[in-house]
């Protein structure tokens, strides 16, 4: 995986005012991402996506595909058998992946600071706020509060995603084999 700073730099090249995507967004839609919270959201999404896609794929692959075969013999089209059987069975895993992606986004640092800088109330993520507080004399109390908040958030996300995964309906058949 690329260092986050490199991802941020590539975003800067692509979505900057002179970049191939950034200049078009600006001239066609009047949208600027640089130094805006929307740019921070894009950076977070791009950093969290590989992790989320991987977790989602695992949960979809974990569903017993033979259940779709059973659905087909009962009259379901391939699309409907996925929609009515595999997707609901994979749903807790998909939600768990979203929670993990959310936690990853809150902790985003490198790509964000490179692409949209560190602007209070606009692009400052939790670790960026901790980093800024560390630069200020007497900011230790603030650092402690923010650090505790991040520990609580990541622990909460971990517990929630574990809970969701454990409450998957158990795609594997329970009788016989």
């Amino acid at each position, binding site marked *: 995986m690329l260092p986050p700073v490199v991802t941020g730099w590539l975003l800067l090249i692509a979505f900057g005012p002179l970049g191939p995507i950034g200049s078009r967004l600006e001239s066609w839609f009047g949208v600027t991402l640089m130094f805006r919270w929307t740019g921070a959201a894009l950076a977070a999404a791009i950093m969290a996506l590989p992790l989320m896609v991987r977790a989602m794929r695992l949960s979809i692959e974990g569903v017993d595909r033979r259940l779709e075969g059973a659905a087909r013999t*009962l009259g379901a089209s391939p699309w409907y058998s996925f929609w009515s059987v595999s997707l609901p*069975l994979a749903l807790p895993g998909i939600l768990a992946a979203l929670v993990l992606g959310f936690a990853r986004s809150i902790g985003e640092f490198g790509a964000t600071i490179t692409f949209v800088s560190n602007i209070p109330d606009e692009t400052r993520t939790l670790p960026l706020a901790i980093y800024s507080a560390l630069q200020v004399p007497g900011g230790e109390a603030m650092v402690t509060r923010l650090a505790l908040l991040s520990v609580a958030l990541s622990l909460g996300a971990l517990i929630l995603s574990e809970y969701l995964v454990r409450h998957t309906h158990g795609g594997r058949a*329970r009788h*016989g084999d």
Partner: protein
Amino acid sequence: MAIDIDVAKRLGDRTIAARFTAGPGLTALFGPSGAGKTSILNMVAGLLRPDRGHIRIGERTLFGDAIDLPPEARRVGYIFQDGRLFPHRRVRANLLYGHHLADPVDRWMGFDEAVAFLGIGALLDRWPRTLSGGEAQRVAIGRALLRGPELLLMDEPLSSLDAARRGDIMAVIERIRDELKLPILYVSHDRAEVDRLATQVVTIDG
């Protein structure tokens, strides 16, 4: 209504081939484990594509002559060895899954009728994971019947049950054969089961 089957399929380094005609009643496909009996049922259900041959129910061609109906269009009910109920749906929703999808003209059994026939009225609000093996297999049979099939496939439906439950389910299968007069293709490697249930036996050597 005759069921005319002539299929061959290469799977890995072995060839599974079968040619037989099944009449009314229960036709047992009998043979040792690993002879490809389940693969033959999968081909009839449309879950596995034969390399060549044909599958016909009466005048209706399911496979062959450039026809290859998808499983959902075959009107073939399948009872799997492990029940294979949908774990995220209660018994009632499992039973109705295929019933709702079936063309109303194809249905020949109503929901209440199927529930009474199988004696599963007390199970309707239960989750599949709370059912015993025998209960799960009754629900699986009901789910297949409510889809309005012209033919039932059963793949060792008794193999995960204890002796007492086996007798129960065998009695249900006999009633499907004799009262509902639904043709059944039944895979087994158990001589006693086959002797009790089969109208006709086809030996699969592999």
